[in-house]
């Protein structure tokens, strides 16, 4: 199935709903077309093309809910899916947390679809890999990388008349270059809606530069250091805070945001006042969908304003229990910064460590959001405003809350991709004091 236009999707969804005999019915339709190519040891290893569409019908009788999925779109198949969901709903136990479908909503426009990205061909993928390999060969390095692109649409309609539609494109590219003796390693990762913003050769050169510069690292004693976290390093800690800003856990007393006696830290100053964190589907540098899979509008939400916790996200059920607006989990993270470049941050640092990437991040203590993980693919010692030499990788144990209280300076935000969750973010490089490294790693 090609990407359906808004009118085509609307007509198909209306047809599905006309078959419904349930108390309520909601239909989601997704379609995407994409491909990927993977390479390692300076040669392609696997590649694939994936094209899929799914229509999901959810029917409910009171609080009994059933869902059916189908990928055929003739009338008989559509009716069969509706009947199937109704049959499953009748068999289901009551879900006391089930919410009625939403009434029609107003959505802002969307900037998430770029025709050039939708037009990516297998040849363009292979050519991009060839460009990346050319950089690796020129620098006498070993490359491993992955390119993934897709174009898709999403539409939903329900028995109360809600209709939502969006198209989107995405391309992501990440690459690791290693020196042939295995003593240096560098990484770059980029993700965009618009493929014209992706420069594979430039990204590969960044990774190549880090691979060469990180060779023959020296060991420093673990301990507390001033660090400069590049955005790719900062996001993997920052997102752990984001993912835990769930209102229900906070209200239930099992969150870093819980307070004695069933209260929460909502409205309290939590981190340095220079920290302002928000999400905005309309941001021109990182547009995301104006609605969520359950039909809620995604709007600009300020989560932390000048260090104060301003908003938490809610399921529709929990928002109803608490009689508040059901703000959904956001699709992106944007953090305000300053105007300094990464180089400026380095120049202003007397002694410190430049961290280009953090890896294998895992929760140690949910009460304090203590996380552990390691530096990877280029860690450098800074002295008197200059990078002096590469250092061996460290394991850290740190909480994003402590980190954002130990803020020294923020640089200019740039778009990055989390290597842990694939979440896209627009965040500044951060200079942090007293960042806790607890041991050394021999890994390169």
């Amino acid at each position: 199935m090609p990407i359906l236009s808004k009118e085509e999707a609307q007509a198909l969804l209306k047809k599905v709903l006309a078959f419904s005999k349930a108390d309520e019915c909601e239909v989601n339709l997704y379609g995407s077309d994409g491909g990927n190519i993977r390479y390692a040891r300076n040669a392609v290893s696997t590649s694939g093309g994936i094209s899929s569409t799914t229509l999901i019908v959810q029917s409910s009788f009171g609080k009994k809910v059933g869902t059916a999925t189908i990928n055929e779109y003739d009338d008989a198949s559509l009716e069969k899916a509706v009947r199937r969901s109704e049959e499953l709903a009748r068999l289901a136990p009551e879900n006391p947390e089930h919410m009625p479908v939403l009434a029609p909503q107003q959505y802002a426009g969307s900037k998430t679809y770029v025709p050039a990205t939708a037009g990516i061909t297998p040849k363009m993928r292979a050519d991009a890999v060839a460009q990346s390999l050319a950089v690796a060969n020129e620098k006498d390095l070993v490359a491993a990388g992955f390119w993934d692109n897709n174009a898709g649409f999403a539409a939903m309609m329900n028995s109360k008349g809600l209709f939502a539609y969006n198209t989107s494109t995405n391309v992501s590219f990440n690459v690791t270059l290693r020196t042939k003796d295995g003593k240096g390693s560098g990484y770059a990762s980029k993700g965009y809606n618009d493929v014209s913003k992706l420069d594979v050769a430039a990204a590969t050169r960044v990774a190549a530069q880090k691979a060469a510069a990180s060779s023959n690292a020296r060991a420093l004693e673990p301990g507390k250091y001033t660090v400069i976290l590049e955005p790719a390093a900062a996001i993997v800690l920052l997102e752990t805070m984001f993912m835990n800003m769930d209102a229900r856990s906070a209200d239930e007393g099992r969150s870093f945001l819980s307070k004695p006696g069933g209260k929460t830290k909502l409205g309290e100053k939590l981190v340095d006042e220079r920290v302002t964190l928000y999400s905005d589907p309309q941001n021109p540098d990182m547009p995301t969908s104006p609605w969520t899979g359950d039909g809620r509008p995604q709007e600009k939400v300020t989560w932390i304003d000048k260090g104060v916790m301003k908003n938490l996200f809610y399921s529709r059920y929990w928002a109803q229990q608490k009689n508040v607006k059901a703000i959904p989990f956001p699709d992106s993270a944007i953090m305000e910064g300053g105007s300094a470049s990464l180089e400026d941050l380095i120049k202003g640092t007397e002694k410190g460590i430049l961290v280009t990437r953090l890896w294998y991040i895992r929760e140690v203590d949910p009460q304090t959001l203590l996380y552990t993980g390691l530096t990877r693919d280029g860690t450098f010692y800074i002295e008197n405003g200059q990078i002096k030499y590469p250092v061996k990788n460290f394991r850290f144990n740190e909480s994003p809350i402590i980190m954002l209280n130990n803020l020294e300076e923020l640089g200019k935000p740039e778009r990055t991709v989390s290597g842990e969750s694939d979440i896209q973010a627009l965040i500044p490089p951060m200079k942090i004091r007293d960042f806790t490294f607890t041991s050394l790693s021999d890994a390169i």
Partner: protein
Amino acid sequence: MKRKEFLHLSAMSIGAMMLPKFSLLGNPITAEEALYEGLDVSTKKALADVALQAATSKGATYADIRIGRYLNQFVTTREKKVQGIANTESLGVGIRVIANGSWGFAATNSFTKEDIARTAEKAVAVAKANSKIITEPVQLAPQKGYGEVTWKTPVEQNAFTVPVKDKVDLLLQANGIAMQGGASFVNSAILAVNEQKYFASTDGSYIDQDIHRIFPTFTVTKIDRASNKFQSRKSLSAPSGMGYEYLTPLADTRVAGIVTRYKGRYDLLEDIKNATADVEQKLKAKSVEPGKYDLVLDPSHLWLTIHESVAHPTELDRVLGYEANYAGTSFLTLDKWKAGNFKFGSDLVNIVGDKLQPGSLGAVGYDDEGVKCKEWDIIKNGVLVNYQAIRDQAHIIGLKESQGCCYAQTWADVQFQRMPNVSLRPGTSPLSVDDMIKNVEKGIYIVGDGSFSIDQQRYNFQFGGQTFYEIKNGKIVGMLNDVAYQANTQEFWNSCTAIADASDYRLGGAFNDGKGQPSQSNAVSHGSSTTRFNGVNVINTARKI
């Protein structure tokens, strides 16, 4: 384990029916529909022959086809509520070929002969296109065809035949025990998996397999509202390659000790009662004094340390650099293996790879490229002697045949090298856990798996656990909090000074071992007996925010 997968699985066990997400795993069906017979073997053979012929006629020098029906059932609850019941089915065909010396892969969920032939041709076209950017042609270890054979997980009770109501009743009964015992919250779930896989290749194999797995699990949480502290304890169950019989304990299932652990089978109701008592104790336990301790690690904990620090670095694709951009490479480079004397661990450490152990997640008859499963040594008397390899890697380490480690998470994903069960052999001299603890002056006994993190070459790791018991002068004196241990893999395994005997041997494991781009999940078990490691660095993880 990859965090994405981990979060996904946690969300499933904690988080209700976010049903649109389930479509990724398969289409929703009824519990009864899961019991329908799939395609009969003769139909599958006919379809397979269409694919193999189409591929070879287009120039493939090798082809294989996997016709898969993947069933999942999830029953999730919290406190008195059923959060979700989902039955999913994913049905389709994956075809892999070699043409012009290069791999190609394509998949379809259509079962017409025309579409299957077209998909085979597409796989050949992909292989030919890729052959322009390869450096050397694929070299496949020889594999004899087995003809028409079958294999089935020896289940006593297919979990899919057990009424959903029985599962709901068991989970709600368990939740009730926790809440009555003073828990603030409890989440519980039963996950069941059935892979019905048909494999055929141009080598002349037609392999029909029926594979079952089950994972009951819970988390009990208690909140002290006055101090604003909370503690949780997870179940000590092991995801297993078994049927529903896993949930029926036998006379020898319980392993007695400071907390009851389980062998082969599992007692959910007893464990949740114990967990509820544990969270109460954890809220009052003293914070650990950081320093060097002798660690006594229970198999319910040690499986994860084996998984991360032994099983991953001995994956040959990581060693060769195929995972350099994602999961990482390995410190166990080929030169260390070639040297023949690389001391991975102490003389006591014997690590074995297999896909045979009854009840293990890795147990199948044949892997996903038609190789009969086997057992082999990876670390022998502390020395690195082997890796985990598949057909196109065997020649690199001088093997004449594959070790049978090929797996794809569904029909739609290309198969590649995945870890088998990787286990620590039990001690050969009689040694009980009690006798092991008696000899420890200053130590910590750790039960259950917790936080885990390790670098991309598998040198430096940090692990938490579920419960930590302080050992002083040969005796357990109480519970500790805020414990995590950090070590270098080689130093850690060389500090292994005692392994309990085979009577203590148990399996642990995970459904969600992650590797590859796009990422795929693999289910794997790791067996061990309780093991002692001397002088390991323990940190205190308490912080104030």
